[in-house]
């Protein structure tokens, strides 16, 4: 039985009461506990710094050469908080409500409410660190609105919010490294989890520079290793984003929840060639001022600026008059796909729609637009060689974020005691669709304001014997990790790692992407094991395990994607409803909107590894809604 450990009582008091009921570790004893934090993006850096401040001994790990380079650095648009500084009717309850609704009623009320409560502390904390959020002329903080909300609650730092928040957390982490309370291991990849007597007690790592394998033991392991969007090969994620840490933990007993819940972001630069290595997001905040349209005539050859107003279809404004261009991401993405599938798409491939700033520039002036989005326009021009101040941007949906992740309870602990999961790596707060500007909020809430308390609750009651890196259980896991690396090097086949990754990504995008159906999913389930089999027979990984070997790093990650993908496709096949980003073509309303099935699917699907990624065991956590009424989501 999955026990979510949601405290009873009134929603608004749960977190306070829970913190009161958690046993405390006294300050002198905190020094006796060692914590491993894997990943130092927003979730991991904030967690490491805060736990170190409390007195725990932290060892932190990341793949990049510096914690400042985690994928969080790339977040553009902003971070939500229920400050109500704009006096426009926002509140903790409204943020909670919008998030549960935006997630299409597939998240836990208690978690989401806590997230909304913590949101305000996050802004305070970040400002105190010196994070340079946008300000008004009076010196107070500015806000903008984001998709799926009708209030302005998003705090931002030009188009570089993730960068500034991560640097804030990185600074806090640097301070604790300097204080000797955090040992930082950069360019170090976790390859496996060590579980002893049923509890997470350590990890096996490979130093990416020297190639050295190491075992690290601790009293708890906290995974903050981000999302798995790169299973699609092309996504807006940074190149190193992977599923390895989560997947290895899954194989050691952590359940994987809702792996099919992925977010396709509506505003990305369209694919333009088969050499392409990644997709670039154009922040959702652009939809505040940009209007989305396609020509009313199919394959209209005219330049967009030559197409008169009455020959344009502003299809979001037409279909969703009350939210207009600010509908949530899943809705906007599907609408773009629909017009392109119907033949109205623009650009060389016909797989793009216009995002037009002409009206906003006329209204507010070019300078105001530059002030708001300058770096995004600049990036767009760099990539496409077109000037978005003069001609509309071309955009298309792309894989962006993964709502699924390792299952965690209210304390953020997985099904392996002592293994906690934070940030994008867990499944917890966004249900089937994440609202814009909520991932940064969740990562920092988990790291600054949840784990520091709940880990104490675990230590205060867990009976933790001493473990050492040279005991048999640890040596065994380390041996397995080494053998796997040897095996990859010894295949000595003919195809490069990337070609397998591309093949898998292509299959996942076509069959497990924006729209899914039984036939396509069954085909994916047939094809994935075939690709995996060929990978292990024919992959070509040059070089050796000693020293820096980037092909080898990639090979390990692709091998794990090739297992994980199967569980993901199976989850999508099993969930016979449409909700949020999970759109099953068989389950839609007559107007083409997602049709949920609350009677049969108002649950979290948590998969247990059984030795075969095609045959995991399904456990269901039923979701109960006491405060928010389940309705057909409407943004009309």
């Amino acid at each position, binding site marked *: 039985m999955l026990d979510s450990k949601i405290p009873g009582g009134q929603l608004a008091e749960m977190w306070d009461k829970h913190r009161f009921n958690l046993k405390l570790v006294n300050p002198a004893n905190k020094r006796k506990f060692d914590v491993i934090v894997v990943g130092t993006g927003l979730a991991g850096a904030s967690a490491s710094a805060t736990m170190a401040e409390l007195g725990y001994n932290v060892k932190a790990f990341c793949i990049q050469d510096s914690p400042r380079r985690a994928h969080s650095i*790339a977040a553009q648009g902003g971070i939500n908080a229920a400050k109500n500084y704009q006096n426009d009717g926002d509140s903790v309850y409204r943020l909670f409500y919008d998030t549960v609704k935006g997630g299409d009623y597939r998240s836990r009320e208690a978690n989401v409410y806590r997230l909304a409560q913590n949101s305000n502390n996050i802004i305070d904390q970040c400002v105190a660190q010196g994070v340079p959020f946008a300000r008004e002329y009076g010196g107070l903080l500015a806000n903008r609105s984001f998709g799926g909300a009708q209030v302005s609650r998003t705090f931002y730092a030009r188009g570089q919010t993730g960068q500034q928040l991560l640097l804030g957390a990185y600074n806090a982490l640097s301070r604790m490294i300097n204080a000797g309370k955090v040992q930082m291991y950069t360019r170090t990849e976790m390859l496996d989890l060590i579980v002893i007597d049923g509890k997470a007690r350590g990890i096996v790592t490979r130093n990416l520079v020297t190639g050295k394998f190491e075992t690290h033991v601790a009293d708890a392991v906290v995974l903050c290793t981000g999302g798995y969007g790169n299973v699609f090969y092309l996504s807006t994620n940074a190149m190193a984003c992977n599923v390895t840490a989560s997947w290895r933990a899954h194989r050691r007993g952590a359940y994987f929840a809702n792996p099919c819940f992925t977010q396709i972001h509506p505003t990305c630069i369209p694919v333009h060639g088969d050499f392409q290595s990644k997709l670039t997001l154009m922040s959702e905040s652009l939809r505040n001022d940009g209007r989305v349209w396609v020509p009313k005539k199919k394959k209209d050859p005219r330049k967009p600026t030559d197409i008169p107003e009455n020959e344009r279809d502003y299809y979001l404004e037409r279909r969703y008059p009350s939210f207009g261009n600010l509908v949530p991401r899943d809705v906007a993405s599907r609408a773009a796909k629909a017009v392109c599938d119907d033949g109205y798409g623009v650009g060389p491939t016909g797989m793009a729609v216009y995002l037009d700033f002409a009206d906003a520039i006329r209204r507010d002036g070019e300078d105001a637009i530059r002030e708001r989005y300058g770096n995004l326009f600049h990036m767009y021009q760099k990539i496409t060689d077109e000037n978005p101040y003069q001609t509309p941007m071309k955009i298309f949906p792309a894989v962006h974020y993964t709502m699924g992740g390792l299952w965690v309870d209210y304390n953020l602990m997985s099904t392996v005691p002592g293994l906690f999961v934070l940030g994008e790596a867990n499944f917890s707060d966004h249900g089937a669709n994440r609202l814009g500007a909520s991932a940064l909020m969740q990562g920092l809430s988990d790291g600054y304001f949840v784990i520091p308390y709940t880990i104490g609750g675990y230590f205060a009651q867990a009976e933790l014997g001493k473990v050492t890196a040279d005991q048999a259980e640890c040596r065994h896991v380390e041996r397995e990790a080494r053998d796997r690396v040897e095996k990859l090097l010894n295949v000595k086949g003919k195809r490069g790692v990337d070609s397998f990754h591309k093949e898998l990504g292509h299959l996942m995008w076509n069959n497990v992407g924006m729209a899914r159906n039984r036939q396509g999913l069954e085909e994916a389930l047939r094809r994935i094991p075939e690709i995996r089999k060929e990978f292990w027979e024919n992959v070509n990984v040059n070089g050796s395990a000693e020293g820096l070997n980037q092909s080898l790093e990639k090979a390990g990650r692709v091998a794990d994607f090739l297992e994980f993908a199967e569980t993901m496709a199976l989850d999508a096949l099993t969930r016979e409803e449409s909700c949020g980003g999970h759109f099953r073509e068989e389950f839609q309303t007559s107007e083409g909107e997602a049709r949920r099935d609350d009677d049969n699917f108002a649950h979290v699907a948590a998969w247990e590894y059984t030795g075969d990624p095609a045959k995991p065991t399904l456990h269901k956590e039923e979701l109960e809604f006491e405060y928010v009424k389940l309705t057909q989501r409407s943004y009309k």
Partner: protein
Amino acid sequence: MSSNTINIKLRVWRQNGPEDSGRFEQYTLDNISTDASFLEMLDVLNDQLIAEGKEPVAFDHDCREGICGTCGAVVNGQAHGPEKGTTLCQTHMRTFGSGQTITLEPFRAKAFPVIRDLVVDRTAFDSITQSGGYVSVRTGSAPDANAIPIGKEHADKAFDAATCIGCGACVAACPNASAMLYVGAKVSYLSLLPQGEVERHDRAKNMVTTMDSLGFGNCSNAGECEEACPKNISVENIARLNRELLKAALV
């Protein structure tokens, strides 16, 4: 988007490890789309090398959006290549002409030892930050965010300095391999804000002392750093750092 293709010659620095002396190797690449990014061109080169059973060129990269600061190499003598205010990952092949020879080397500086090929070790930057590049504020101890109003002008200036991506191009471009632009940006950003006020003198002193101890050279106002900076961080920040140091010496 135009999709022309070009043929290029590459001279790439190959070095097996920190101990190897390294050398240039030549490669030819045909039919590279001008829409490809510089790093995508390197992907194509690596695919070609792998197919020939050779070791691919090691190079650092992650976001490929110009924000993480991971990528970087010296292209035809310029850190991050010919385009001003642009990281290598955001440089596109349309910047180069067909038939051109492109020479690629790692960022070179005593404080940035080469790990392999184009990959260097920039841990020294982290060490500088650890010695004081922060506001000492514990989680949980912050006042309400709007209790600290900051004039927009100051906030904007601080922001411009805060956009440094820590890539190290400034060090690679400097004839003395100085890190003054990197340190100056961080010190300026925090000293322009009220939150950074209390620790401003110690911060400037400690960061510069650490910088000196790590093998970075002295600043001789050559200004090459600003030229190479993909984020256009201004040398004004070095002047501000010097003022902070002066004030620190007086207190």
